[in-house]
Each structure stands twice: as C-alpha cells, then as structure tokens.
C-alpha cells in the first residue's frame, strides 16, 4: 500500500524510433562532415604556408578517389545542413510587420536568394 513509481530510461536508440528523430539525427550528423571538411582545408592552408610542393601534394590528396567520394558525401550533408538551417530561421528569429508575423515563406525564400548570390560570387571568383 505504498508508492513505487516506475522510472523509465530513454534507450540510446531513441532516435531510431521515428522518421522525425532519424531526420533530426541526420541533420546533427552534418556536423561531422562540416568539421572534417574545414579541418582538411585548414591542413591545406598549412600546406600552402609550407610552399608550392606541399600545396601540390595536398591537391594530389584531394584528387584521390576516396577524397572525391568523401567530398561528394560532404557536399550532400552540407547542403542538407543549409536546407534545414534555412527552414528553422523563421522560428529562431520571427519578424513582425505591423500587427502580424511575416509568414515563413518569404523569410526562407530570402535566405535562398542570399545563398545563391554567395555561391555565384564564390564561383565567379574561382573562375575569373
């Protein structure tokens, strides 16, 4: 005749339970590719500081098929990061206009415009 509450624990596989959580975990895993990619570039920058030969060998590594496969994956995950990040912005920074909130559409759309512009600038700088 006394209380004995059952204390559940969340299993470590909680994120496999629902597609919604899996999608979240994929979004969080983008950090692995973001981190790895910028780390590789920083190593490249260091190689650059060591002279043309070192830089050349860095470029050589980038051309290795495994490297290309990694970068394709990294590109996919980084783009997923971009899409999810933009999608959340209307909720992190809601904007009011007059008596009403600006709907998510225009806020998200504006980010895609900026994204496209930034990408074009980078590509132009590279190709120019």
């Amino acid at each position, binding site marked *: 005749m006394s209380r004995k509450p*059952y204390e*559940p624990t969340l299993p470590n596989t909680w994120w496999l339970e629902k597609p919604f959580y899996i999608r979240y975990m994929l979004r969080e895993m983008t950090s692995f590719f973001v981190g790895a990619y910028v780390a590789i570039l920083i190593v490249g920058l260091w190689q650059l500081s060591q002279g043309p030969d070192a830089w050349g060998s860095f470029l050589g590594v980038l051309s290795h098929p495994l490297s290309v496969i990694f970068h394709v994956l990294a590109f996919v995950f980084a783009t997923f990061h971009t899409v999810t990040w933009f999608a959340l912005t209307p*909720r*992190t920074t*809601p904007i009011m206009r007059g008596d009403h909130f600006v709907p998510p559409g225009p806020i998200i759309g504006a980010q895609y415009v900026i994204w496209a512009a930034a990408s074009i600038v980078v590509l132009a700088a590279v190709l120019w």
Partner: protein
Amino acid sequence: MSDTTTFTLEVLRYNPESDDVPHAESFSVPYQEDWVVLDALNWVKDNVDGSLTFRWSCHMAVCGSCGMMVNNEPVLSCKAFLRDYLKDGKGTITVGALKNFPVEKDLVIVMDSFMEKLEAVKPWIIRTTEKPVEEGTFIQLPKQLKRFKHHTSCINCLLCYAACPQVGLNPGFIGPAALALAHRYNLDSRDQGKDLRKDVTASEYGVWECTFVSACSEVCPKDVEPAGAIQEQKIESSIDWALDHLIPGRKAR
C-alpha cells in the same frame, strides 16, 4: 449501437503494488465512430476493469489532463479519434503513459518535476512598482499582444516533455513548456522581470540543453511553438552574456 465491430485496445499497465515494470494488457472494445481513445478507456473502466487508472476531465482538449502515448505518439487522448487509428473499426491501438516521466500507476505519470520547473521560471508578471487598480488597465496594442499570444496557449499537457529526447536524456532540463512560458512573460509588454528569469532560463539547465529537435512544437496541440521560444531565448541570452562581458559594470545590475 448496432455497429458490432470491436478493436483491440492494448494498454501498458503498471501496478506499483505488484509490478516491477509495466506490462501490456489487451481489451476488446466496441468501436464507435465518434469515439476518441479516452472514450474507449472509460468504456474499459466502466465495463471491464474499474482499476484501470488514467487522468481526464474536460474531454475538450483544454484541461490538459489526458496526455498519453497512443501508438507511441504523445497525444491528448480526448482528441485522438479511434477512426484515425483503425481500419473499418478493426485493428489495434496501443496506449501507454507519457514518456520521460516516472509512472505512478497505469497511465498516470508523476509530474512533480514539471511543477517545480514551472515555478522556477517565475511565470507571473514581475514589476518594479505595481500599478494601482484605480489607474485602470495597461495599454497593450494588438501587435504587442500578438507578439506573445501563441506562447500563452500552453495547457501544461506535457506532450512536449514526452516528445523531447533532451528531457529524457537530461532530467534536469527545464524543458519546452516551462521555457515557453518564461518567454511568454518576457515578451509581455507589462512585464519587467526578464532579467530575473534569465538566471534560470540561461542556466545550464535552461535553454542551452535544447538542440532544436523541435519535436515539442510538432506534438503541441495548441501551437505554442516552444521550440522557437527557446531559440529566441538562446539568441537573446547570448547577446546579453556578450554585453555583460564587454561592458564593464553591466553585469552588476
């Protein structure tokens, strides 16, 4: 009552006086097109087993008592229609206590932790000086009301706590509903207590534990948008922290 199809209601039951862990028990329940899961539970309690234990009251999705896991999703059982879970009135619906809380008995959770967290965020108007009643009401423009109105709609049903993995992983986390209510008061044009609340909301148990899974907002039956409320507070608290560290004397308050 001419319709005679029945379905299986599988309830995760826990009797603290005889069980160590919850176990499933199945009941065969007559299907009624207009019924919600709560009606089915009441049918079982009235006709099969009076010891089946769950909370409920208003049956109109506003008192917040009857939150539970239905087919592993946190929902208000008074708004979970059988027809949305069954095909031709047949099949199985599973029901369990809300996740991430201790279970007192059957579908009843222990919610002490939430009550403490709610109180901790000081969910009331804080003012340096009270306005006398004789002076009438405050002026609050519709746009000022609109800014926080959706965050006032929380019915404390705790579906968001059941959906949030961070609550499950870190029981100290103040959690979605309480943080949304803190934000609601912070945004209220009549309030002056934001700084006091930040001691709690910007603590290590506060907004920083959130990783923006945003399951809280997904399951919220009242569109309170706790996930957004927490992110806004992260941004504001970060700016606040930076200013505290950049401007000498600011922190002294």
